[in-house]
């Protein structure tokens, strides 16, 4: 039947997917691994205007640089795809190695980072140098708590570490990613968002909680993501489009304009 009130037009939302994993994923549940060639067809199918993409093996294997470089090569002719590097604190402590890594990333045309929190947990003393270097350039950072897939979870220690990092680096945009692995989400996520100015969540694995976050903490704190190919974009696209609790402006922010603003802030 017809909806009683017209929902947003999908095209007008200008969807910007912040979490797409490229690369061949050898797993029976994911036979359709995304390649640079196939991802554009997927974006078109779901009316997604553009996407941040990272490389599957860069999330899983060292040296991460192999996957990060492979990513750049694979998307070099695809202006709708924007690269994200997976990075972690350099082995050598100090500001110089961290700054060198961030500058290398920016020079390669990469304006967002994915920080693998399961491999390198959010211990503030360990991330201090790299977060300082990233903050100097206002690089949006996706704090990735997922395992092989987008399923993940937060511990109390994670939340405490995140709080310290967020308060120590207030100009660094931090986006919690892959923080759901079934029913429920850590109780402290929304309290953390409300007590900091720079913590966001993306929508990978999150079907309801993102609305609560948008209503309680503001729509500018929520970033659209599909988690493809680990989850089907049709689930998330429709979820945002038909969210009756949010007005058109809030949906546009969540769908893509928040992410565009963060990327435009990189310097």
């Amino acid at each position: 039947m017809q909806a009683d009130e017209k929902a947003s037009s999908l095209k007008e939302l200008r969807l910007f997917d912040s979490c797409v994993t490229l690369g061949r994923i050898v797993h029976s549940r994911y036979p359709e691994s995304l390649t640079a060639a196939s991802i554009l067809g997927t974006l078109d199918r779901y009316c997604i205007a553009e996407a941040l993409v990272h490389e599957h093996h860069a999330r899983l294997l060292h040296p991460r640089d192999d996957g990060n470089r492979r990513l750049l090569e694979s998307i070099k002719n695809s202006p709708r795809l924007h690269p994200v590097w997976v990075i972690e604190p350099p082995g050598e402590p100090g500001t110089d190695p961290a700054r060198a890594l961030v500058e290398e990333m920016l020079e390669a045309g990469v304006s967002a980072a994915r920080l693998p929190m399961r491999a390198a947990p959010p211990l503030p003393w360990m991330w201090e140098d790299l977060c300082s270097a990233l903050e100097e350039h206002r690089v949006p950072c996706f704090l990735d708590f997922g395992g092989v897939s987008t399923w993940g979870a937060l511990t109390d220690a994670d939340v405490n570490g995140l709080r310290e990092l967020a308060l120590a680096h207030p100009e660094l945009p931090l986006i919690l990613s892959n923080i759901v692995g079934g029913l429920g989400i850590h109780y402290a996520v929304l309290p953390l968002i409300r007590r900091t100015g720079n913590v966001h969540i993306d929508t990978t694995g999150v079907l309801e909680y993102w609305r609560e976050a948008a209503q309680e903490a503001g729509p500018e704190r929520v970033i659209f993501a599909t988690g493809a190919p680990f989850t089907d974009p049709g689930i998330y696209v429709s979820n945002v489009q038909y969210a009756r609790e949010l007005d058109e402006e809030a949906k546009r922010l969540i769908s893509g304009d928040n992410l565009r603003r963060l990327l435009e802030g990189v310097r």
Partner: protein
Amino acid sequence: MSAILESWKAGLGLPDVLVIDGHVHVGAWPHAATFGSADEAVRKSVAFMDANGVDAFCAVSGGYHHEGANYRLGNDFLLEVWRRMPDRLVPFLCLNPNDARDEILAELDRMYAAGVRCIKLINSYQENYPGDGPNLMAVYEYADSHRMLVFNHSWGTEEILKISAEFPETNFIFGHYGVLDARENVYANIWNLGPLGWLDRGIAKLGAAKFMMGSDGFLNPMSVGIGPVVFAPVSDDDKRLMLGLTIARLLERVGALPAPLGEKYLANRPDRVHPPELS
């Protein structure tokens, strides 16, 4: 071009399409109540349906089917909500197979007398009671003799092969996908956080008639169940099957399809959507 997809993308919902969400919970739940009262359940569930273009939903009970809870309380709540919106809610009673068999059969009698024709099981969450354990075999026998529809969160492969063969006149629905290719009387509600293209592959292998839309509302928004169906690269005829026609057929067979939907059910059938040309 898919007219169904274009309407959905334009924000219009699903005009002229029969849409029945086949997997919705109302009532108490371990980690959150869906609604605080029957009044709220009626008011908000209607609003959710109207916003998404959904005609009706199958209420597969509430959290009273979880371990140790008195499932009759959940069924009481279900009846209360159903009586206030009989045209838009199809009740699926719940039970706990760990209860005494006499108690289970008495509850089946009570709910059948109240007009309920569909059963929701979730034995894997109830001390993992076997899907072919003696009390559930008694439930299937009851369903078979009373012409009822049976829905379960999940069955094991051997279990569904056994029971679907033993009760060929009863239709069985998996709550979250499942083993479908062996029996004509086994179907799947689609809801799960499936990977890219999972539904496409299922349709390609088994045909759209095996699948029916569901969202696991009102724990989730209804749109998350609709999205994968409307974006599937299949014909609008196939989308109509998954959005409502197949579950409507199964409900009609057991006398559970709300009467006001009968006409729309007929109008959505392929022979009415594509009438034969007059020669």
